[in-house]
Every structure is written in C-alpha cells, then in structure tokens.
C-alpha cells in the first residue's frame, strides 16, 4: 500500500509516494539515494543507521516510511553546516576516531545528540550514550577522546 508523505529532510521539504511498510532506512538509501546512513544489522542492534527524527536519535531500520509524514528528519548528510565540518566531525578526523568508517555516521549522530543536551559529559556519560553504537575497528578509545575534544570545542565556541 502506497502512502503520500511530506517531511523535512535535512531542512528541505520533501514529498514522496512510499510503500507504507518500507523501512525508513531502505527509503533513505535505495529510494532517495542518501547512502551515508548505514545498514549494519537491520534489527536495531548496532546503531549504524541512526538518524534524527523530530530531533531525537532513532534507528532508521525500526521506523516505517509511513510514519514520517509531517516529521523532520536529519541524516549524516545534513550534519555539517554549509561547507564547514561540524566540530564533532572534525574531532573524529583529528583524534583518529575513524577507521573503516562504517559505524561513523551513526556514531556521529549519536554524539551530536549527546552534546546537544550536555556540553560537558563525563567519560561515563559518553560511554553510556554510545553503548548502542557498535564499532568493530577502534576499541572506542579514540572515539571517546574525540567526543571530549568536540565538547570542549563547542563549549569554547559557545562562550566566544
């Protein structure tokens, strides 16, 4: 069954006819061609497909396309502000938080969500926030370091 949905995608008004049962993840990747959102498990266990739905991070493999009518969606492609990388993206590059990069999109969305709410997270809070995002390459140490550095950068930026 097809349904017409209207939603904001990375700030742009988008109207589509979608099969209601199609996963949001598949709609983004195969339907719209935004492949930055990654599929790791398809069952909500790895966090690689994390996007913002109305400001909250969700696993896009657990959302049906029919549910997004009237919603605001932000994907990894919408994270940077213009040509500039977001401080979180910069920190991941500088601190060595990226290896194969397949978990990175979901990881960055989750970090952004954490820092939107808490600009001064403890290491424990960072690790807890990222515990639903699996990474097989890094051992998380450099990712945690990058989150700390991004938080510092954002704190100093917001002061200045």
């Amino acid at each position: 069954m097809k349904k017409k949905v209207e939603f904001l995608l990375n700030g742009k008004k988008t109207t589509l006819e979608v099969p209601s049962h199609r996963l949001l993840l598949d709609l983004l990747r195969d339907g719209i061609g935004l492949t930055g959102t990654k599929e790791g498990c398809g069952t909500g266990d790895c966090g690689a497909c994390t996007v913002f739905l109305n400001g909250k991070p969700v696993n896009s493999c657990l959302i049906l396309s029919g549910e997004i009518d009237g919603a605001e969606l932000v994907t990894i492609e919408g994270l940077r502000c213009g040509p500039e990388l977001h401080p979180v993206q910069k920190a991941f590059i500088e601190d060595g938080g990226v290896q194969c990069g397949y978990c990175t999109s979901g990881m960055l969305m989750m970090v952004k969500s954490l820092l939107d709410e808490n600009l001064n997270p403890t290491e424990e809070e960072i690790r807890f926030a990222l515990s639903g995002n699996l990474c097989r390459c890094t051992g998380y140490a450099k990712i945690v370091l990058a989150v700390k550095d991004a938080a510092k950068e954002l704190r100093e930026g917001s002061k200045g």
Partner: protein
Amino acid sequence: MSELSIVGQSVGRIDVEEKVTGGAMYGYDLVLPNMLHGKVLFSSRPHAKIRRIDTGEAKRVPGVVAVITGEDVPWTHGESIKDQPFLAQGKVRHVGEPVAAVAAVDEDTAQTAVSLIRVEYEDLPAYFSPEEACKPDAVAIHEDFNSYRKADFVVGAPLPNVCEHFKLRTGDVEQGFRSADLVLEERYTVPVIQHAAIEPHSAHAQVDPVTGRLTIWVANDAPFRALIELTEALELPKEKIRLINPLQGGGFGSKGGLKVEPIAIALAFHTNGRPVRVKFNRQETFVSTLTRHEAVVYIKSGVMNNGQLVARQMTIFWGAGAYGEKSATVCIRGSLPAPGPYRIPNVKVDGYAVYTNKPVAGAFRGYGIPQGAWACEQHMDELAQRLGMDPLEIRLRNVYVEGDVSYWGERLHSVGLKETLLTAADAIGWDKPRSNTVGLGLACISKPTRSPSTSTAAVLINGKGEVTIRAGTVEIGQGCNTILSQVAAEELKVPLEKIHMAPLDTDVIPFDASTTSSRSTYHMGNAVKQAAIHVREQLAEMAAPMLEVNEQDLFFSDGNVSIKDQPHMSLPMGDVIRRRLGTDGVLKGEGSYTFTLGKDLDLETGHSDHASAFYMYATQAAEVAIDEETGKVRLLRMVAAHDVGKAINPLNCVAQIEGGLAMGIGSALHEELVIDNDGKSRNSSFLDYHLVTSLDLPEMIPIIVEHAEPEGPYGAKGLGEPGLAPTPAAIGNAVARALGVRIYDLPLTPERVYWAIKQRK
C-alpha cells in the same frame, strides 16, 4: 635516507572526510543502473543429500528473471583445495550453505520466489567438533576429497575428514620428557567466533552480453587473488574478468576469498547482461560467509627446575567447517609457532585441519596465533606455578632473543620480544602488591606473515606536482592509504595534501598478493618506496641540465628540486615535468617487492631457514577483579606492548593496537558463535552475539616498541593482527591468579567462571 620528515609523524587519516560526511561509497551502498536483486535459499540441514529441488513455482513469480541451482553452475573454488561449489551440488554440508538463488526486479519479489523453492533432503550423520569428525568411524563429509584439485602443501592424513596435516619435528620429545624435572599435559579449547565487521557482505556482478566480460564490484581484501581464483574456477582468461573494489566497512579476514561473489556471478550469467546485486543480511553474514577456526589444543611440556624448557609436544585440531577455504594455511601458519616464542630443543607438533558440518572457517585476524597462544601461554603459567616461579621469570628465561635459532630452524633477527615483556610488566605494575581479589596476568606471542608474496606499485606525478599512487592494498580501515601516502611523501618530499590514492580496479592497478597477514606496510610500503625513488631519480635526471648541475648536486624539498647549498636555485617538480614532457606530461615510477622463502617449508619436518618475511612480537598484560557471587570478570586495565619495527604513524599504530585489543577482549570474555546439535546457530544476531560495546572496555595502555627490521621500509614490520592474539591468554592468566583455579575453555563467561569457583570450593 638521511633524516625522516613525515615518516614517524602522527598525521591524521587522509581519506576520512568522506567518511564523516556520509559521502564514502561502500560495497553495500552501491546501486547500478538497471540492476536486479539476488536472494538465496540456504540449507536448513547440516549434512544431507539433495534428492530434489523444485523451482517451478518460484520461476512463475512475476518479476523473477532467474532461478538457479548447483546444476546450472558447475564451478568450484577454494584457496588451496577446490572443494566449494558456487551453489550446493548434490549435497549440503552446513546449515546456511547456499542451495539456490533468485534474481528479480526487487528484493521482496526475489525473497518471495526463494520462499517457494522446495528442496527434499536425505539427512546424513553430522559432526560439530573437529575431534568427533576425525574419529576412525566418521562418515566422510567430502567423499571426493582425493579427486579435488589442491595446492602442493595440502597433505592429508589417514584419518577421516582431515583436509590438512601439518608436522613439525625437531629433536626428540620423548627423550626430552625423560630428562625433564617436570612434565605437564593439558587440553585447551577455543570456540567458533565471527568477524562481525559492521558492514555486512555483498557483491555485484554483471556479464557484458556482447563481449562476455565479467565485472564484479565487491569489497574484497584480496582482489587479485579473487581474480586468479575466478579465472581458475570459470576457466576464463584474466582479461575477461575485472574486479572493482568499493570501500570496505571492515573485514578482519572475512572479506577475502570468494563469499557472496559466487552467487552474484552465478546469477549474472543468467540475466542477459543485467547487473545483479546480492546483499547478505546480518544473520546470513554470521553463518554463510566465514568464521574463525575453533580449536582443540593438547599441549605437553617438559621443563627443568630452573624453568628451562626442554621439550614440548602439541596436537591441534582445527575445525575447518564445511569447506577447506584457507584451512590448510591457517593450519600450517597457526601450528608452526604454536609452541610459543621460546627456545625449545625438542618439539613435535601435529596440526590437523578437520572438516565439520559447521559454517566455513578461514582467515581471521591473527591467522591461528590466538588459538595456539590461548593454550601455550596459560600452560606457561601452569608450569611456572608448579615450579614456584614467577610467570614473567619463566618467560624471560626461555624467550627468543636476537640471534636465536627457532625450532623450525631459522636464525631470528630484530627480536623485540624481551623488551615488550619488560615494558608491559612495568606498565601494569607487575611487582606491586595487589589485594587478594585482583589478579595480574601476561602473555606473549610471535607471529609470522604470509610468505612468499609480492606487492607492486606505481607512483605518478603530473605537471602540477600532483602525485597519484596506484597500489593494490585495500583500505579496510587499517589506514594503509595514509601510511603509503606518507611513504611516497617522504621519498618525493612533497606535501601529503598533494598525494592521491587511485581507486582499486584490477584493470588498471598493478598486482598485489593480498591485504592480509599484516603484510602491507612492509611489502607494499617497500614497493611504493621503490616507485617513489624511481620517480625521484627520473626527476633528478630531467632537472640537472635545467639547473646546470650534476644530478648528485640536487636535493628535494617541499615539492621542489633544488641545488644543494643554494636552495634559492630551485624548480617546482611540476615545472620540470612540464618543461620536459609537455603541459599534460606525467612521469611514472614503478616499484616491486617480493619476499622469497629461503628453503621451502619441509613438509615432513616443518623446517625452513627463512619461513616468514618478518616476525611480529608482542606482550599484553591484564589486571582483573572477579565478582565471586556472579562470576563476572571485571577488567581493570590492559597493557599492550607491540614491537612494530618502526612506527610510520604512531597514532595509527596505537589505533590498531586498541582496536585489536578490544577484539581480543571480546573473544576472551563474550564471543562464541553457538552452533547447536541440529547445526543451527543460536546467536547469529548482534542482539545475541555479544560484541564489545563502549561500556565493556577497561583502561587500555598501548606501548610501541621499535626493533627495526632491516628489510622493512624505514625498519617497519607489520601490526594489524597481533593486537588480539595474546589477549585472551593474558586475561585467562589474570583470572587464574585471582581465582586460584584455571579455566581451559573460552570464552570466560560469568557462568563458566561461576562454576569454576564452585568447583574450587
């Protein structure tokens, strides 16, 4: 080479901006025009004859383009034993084996058709442990084993289902045991685990209807080896096959050989030229691609009262799973150094790779070293305890040092092992007293690399001074693009921003053996270095007359060719090229590096005077506390000291060590792919298969030790694999010291530890 400029610097990765913005294109992301979608019917039986397959109903589903079975594709493949069909032929050998495949206009249609295929099976006895499968009365899983095409080093044994028997014979172990003050024999086991790269497996294939040329898009870690395997399997000339390598979202050994490729290719021959995409989901990736060998390890040692080892005998049963894949070489390269990095005069090893009815086992980061180390390194602690010695002391007394001859007959050099032991012990505070509930443990390893092997590369520079590297090393997340760029930048003295890595396509990139076995920095590093030097020499030859000096009076810096002592007399490299070769001229340098064995490995004794291009050495130390009520092991700290030869990029070395360590911790405490007695996996999802999360890791202290390897680029060895190899044994030793009881089987789950505590009381 005088002073190094960019080699040795912790520069950031050159290729990750596209990864943090979502722009990077991985194999799983790829969409081709007009492509069809492939789905697979997998075996539900562990071992059965196929009586009949009915595809009639599936073929009638609207939108279905092709439905194929093993009868449509007669081909087989395998690294050293050609035993694996593209689709099951006549029988199935594990649950999850591909039996039939469908190509259709979309995934839902393909899946619907798959669900309509009917298969009649006749069950056969199935074996789920390598020891069971090679008992004298076991039924053959491969009746036609003797007629398969095989590599020279594949040696069978007079036991059922053995697909490789490795033998090491040095001295006389019986004599050694008789002369020893203490003899100890133990049995250790390691379960099946899975690579679990976050990107699942996929492949795209297309057969050009006019030329018959086959193109495969796949994130394979050894595209040239895959190409060779495919030319053999399909009996096509090399020119008829092309592999294009999109980015790989992690592999750890699972994405070499042929996995999803055979299905995509088989379908592509039946779609009239339309490309086919086959994506495995997570569950399919768990059971239908590759796993790590389970192992049963018997170890017996004779030791003198002063701790000196006099004899060691090991018998190792490697669970190959249903097909040979890389089992023969895992068996050889895992069994050879299994007795540990120690001077032992009398050694006997028998390694048996044994077919079972479990998912296929093959290459996994570490290639057999972690299994041997889990046994050997805990056994060393048991010996020490019985002798009343410190575990560090017994190792220091026996470990290889510079100039030692190994028990396979090779004189060793660049041996940084002792230094890793001492620095790891120091960093964990080995001598500092701890409370009774805290245990310390350490373990050390050496690891060879795949040998012999070849890497070739080309380095190109244009009239703008822009450099392109053509190298067949696959960026699987390990950072090779950055390391190889640093090598080229060092030799050409150009800024890193000027360097670009060409994408990997077997039509245009020169040959490389594989991105495996921690071999790339050493082999491809040497090849790229040589190619860059070749460019530099040609540039000097061109620039000398322009600057009216001799070539030897020139030097290179910041993208310029200058006269020594007169740095203002200089030309940008791009200008030199434009003047000599024209505006669009490109200068090309070529490099090649091959490591050849000394004497080939002797199949009767396992001896070789130069068995590996280099050896990697490492020691890890663990500090644990145990919750005695629940049996939970709480890791407090891990130290990992690794001899890397020379750190070309220290930040990247640390990142590799940390990543390896995390994987090692997972394999120590959580990971096991559970296969039940019906052959079905019980935990083939990320919900049930426990990968380490950000909450499961302790403080990690990576330490880089540099004992330069003279043949390596700038002294570098490899590093990718050893990070996880000693980890479980180090943790196991710490747990044993905290508990006062040894656990012989991995993983160290709370349940297993709890029962060990109960037994002790």
